[in-house]
C-alpha cells in the first residue's frame, strides 16, 4: 500500500530551485533513505512534507488525503512525525516531560478540566505518563526519567528526540540524520533502534550521509542532486548507478 505519494513537487527560493520536479512514493512498512550531496535539497524536501515550507507547485498525498500546503501541526496530526538535523528536544525539561509534551496532539483535557483537576484529567495524565515510560524503555532510556534532557549524552538525546516523536504514534517517521554528531562507536546502537522502530510497524524515511549505514538498512534509496531526483532503487542498484557516482565523486576525466 502506498502511504505517501509525492508528485512533481517544486520549491523555488527566488532564483534557486531547491526541489525540482521530484516524484516518489513510500510504501507502508518500508525504510526509504534519501541521500545526496550537501545542499541537494533533502532537508527542504522534509520541510515540504511536514508543512514547514509550502510547495511552489506539486502535490503531496498521505494515507489517502491531500496534505499539500498543510501546517506543521496538521502534518503531525495526519501521522507524519519528524526529527530534525540539529537534535531538537526541550533541553531544560526532564526526559519524562519531553515525552509527555510529545503526546500533546492526543491530549483532550481543556482549561476547566485542568484547573478543576477532574477525574478525567487525572486519568489522562496518568495514561500519558504511563505511555511515556513505555516508550522510554522501548528506546532504551529507562532510568533517565527525571534527568534534565539537556544533560544527556548526544546519543541519548538522539534517542530521546526519536522517542518524543514516536510516542505520538506516527504512521510515517521522517528522520533527518539520526546519527549526526554521534560517536562512531555509538552509531550501531542507533541503527539498531531505527530497525526496531521499523519492525514495530512504523514506516521510515531517512536522510543520512553515512553510506555504510544507508546501504545496510534501507529497503530503497532515492538520490537527490541540485534538487532533482537522479536515481531511485535498491541499495545495490543505486550504488552502481553512473549518475550517482558522478554526483558524489565527479566525472572521470578522459585523457
Amino acid at each position, binding site marked *: 500500500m502506498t502511504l505517501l505519494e509525492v508528485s512533481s513537487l517544486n520549491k523555488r527560493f527566488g532564483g534557486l530551485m531547491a526541489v525540482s520536479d521530484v516524484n516518489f512514493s513510500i510504501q507502508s512498512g518500508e525504510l526509504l533513505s534519501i541521500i545526496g550531496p550537501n545542499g541537494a535539497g533533502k532537508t527542504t524536501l522534509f520541510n515540504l512534507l*511536514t508543512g*514547514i515550507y509550502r510547495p511552489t507547485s506539486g502535490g503531496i498525498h498521505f494515507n489517502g488525503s491531500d496534505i499539500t500546503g498543510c*501546517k*506543521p*501541526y496538521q502534518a*503531525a*496530526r495526519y501521522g507524519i512525525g*519528524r526529527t*530534525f538535523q540539529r537534535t*531538537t*528536544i*526541550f*533541553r*531544560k*525539561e*526532564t526526559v519524562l*516531560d519531553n515525552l*509527555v*509534551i*510529545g503526546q*500533546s*496532539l492526543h*491530549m483532550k*483535557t*481543556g*482549561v476547566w*478540566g*485542568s*484547573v*478543576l*483537576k477532574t477525574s478525567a*484529567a487525572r486519568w*489522562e*495524565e496518568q495514561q*500519558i505518563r504511563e505511555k511515556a515510560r513505555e516508550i522510554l524503555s522501548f528506546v532504551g532510556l529507562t532510568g533517565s526519567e*527525571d*534527568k*534534565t*534532557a539537556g544533560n544527556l549524552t548526544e546519543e541519548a538525546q538522539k534517542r530521546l528526540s526519536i522517542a*518524543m*516523536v514516536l510516542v*505520538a504514534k506516527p504512521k510515517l517517521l521522517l528522520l533527518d540524520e539520526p546519527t549526526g554528531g554521534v560517536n562512531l562507536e555509538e552509531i550501531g546502537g542507533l541503527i539498531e533502534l531505527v530497525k526496531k522502530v521499523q519492525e514495530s510497524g512504523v514506516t521510515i524515511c531517512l536522510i543520512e550521509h553515512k553510506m555504510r549505514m544507508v546501504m545496510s538498512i534501507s529497503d530503497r534509496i532515492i538520490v537527490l542532486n541540485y534538487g532533482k531526483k537522479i536515481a531511485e532503487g535498491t541499495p545495490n542498484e543505486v550504488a552502481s548507478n553512473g549518475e550517482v557516482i558522478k554526483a558524489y565523486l565527479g566525472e572521470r576525466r578522459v585523457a
Partner: protein
Amino acid sequence: MRKLYSLERVSWLFVLILAIVVPPILGGYLTSILILICIWSMMCISLNLIYGYTGQLSLGHSAFLALGAYSFGLVAVKLHIGFWPAFLAAAVITGLFGFLIGIPALKLRGHFFVLVTLGFAVTIGVIVLAWVDFTGGANGLAGIPRPDPIPLPWGVKFRFDSLLHMYYFVLLFLILTAGFCHRLVSSLLGKTFIAICHDENLTESLGVNTMSRKLLSFTISAMLAGVAGALYASYNAVISPEIAHFTRGTDVLAYLIVGGSATMTGPIVGTFVLVAIPEVLQVVPYLKTLINGVILMLFIVFLPSGIIGGFKTILPKLGGLRGRPRAGEHDIA
C-alpha cells in the same frame, strides 16, 4: 511525588496566615497599600502566564487592566445592574478584547508581538482619555460601587464598606487567581504552554496548534488582568485615564522579573518588594519609577531569574533542603 511539607509550602502557609491575621492591626494607610499589592500581584500573575510560561512578552497589559476597570465601571454606573453582573461583564469584555487583539498580534513573533501589544496599550490609553462622552475623559469615572453585601447565615451580612473587608475580598481573588494559574500551568495543557516558550517550532512539529494555544493563554491572561482592573475600580470608586498609561504594564513587568518569571510565587514576591520599598522609603512618586528602574537593571544583570528563581538555584546547593533537584527554570511551585 513532591514532599507535602516542603519548606516552601510551609513558608507560604505562614505568609498566608500573616496576610489574614496582621492587617486588622495595621492602620488604614498600610491596608490600602496591601490592597494595591494584591491587585498588582494579580496583574503580575496574569502577565506571568503569557510571558513567563508561554514566552510571549506583552506590554499591553495596562490596556487590559484599563479595559477591565472601565468596562466594569461603565456597566455598573450606567446600566445599574449590580456588582456581580458588571464584574462578569468586565471579565468577558476584556477576554474578548484579548482574543481579538491576539489573533493578529500572536501571528507575529518576538519583537513584533511586543510592539503590537505596546501599540495597543498606547491606543487604549489615548481612547480612554479622548472619548470624553463615554469614559469621562480626564475627569475620570466616579461612583463605581463596592461589592454587594454577601448574606451570611443568621441574618448577618458581610459588607464591603470598610477598607479591611475590601482587603479580604481582594486577597480572596488573589488566592483564586494564583490557584487557577498554578493548576493550569502544572496541567498537561500548561506543559504545552511551557513547551511553546522553550521552542515554538518544535512544539508545532509535535502536532500542537501553537497559535490556538498562544491565543488561549493570551485570552486567559487578558481576562485575569481585566478582573484585576475591575477590582481596582471597585476599590478606588473612581478611575481616571492614568491607569490606562502603558507604564503600568511595564511596572508590572518589572515586578515579574524581580520576583522571578515562570515561577508561581515570583509575581507576588516581586510586587510586594517593588511596591513596599518605595512606600517604606517614602519617596516622591516620580522617584519610584527611577528606583524600580535601578532595581530592575540590577536584577537583569545579576539575578535574571529573579528572587524566587534565585532561591530555587541556591536552595538545592545548600544541602538539598528541597527533596530532589528540579529541572529547568520552569518550576511549578
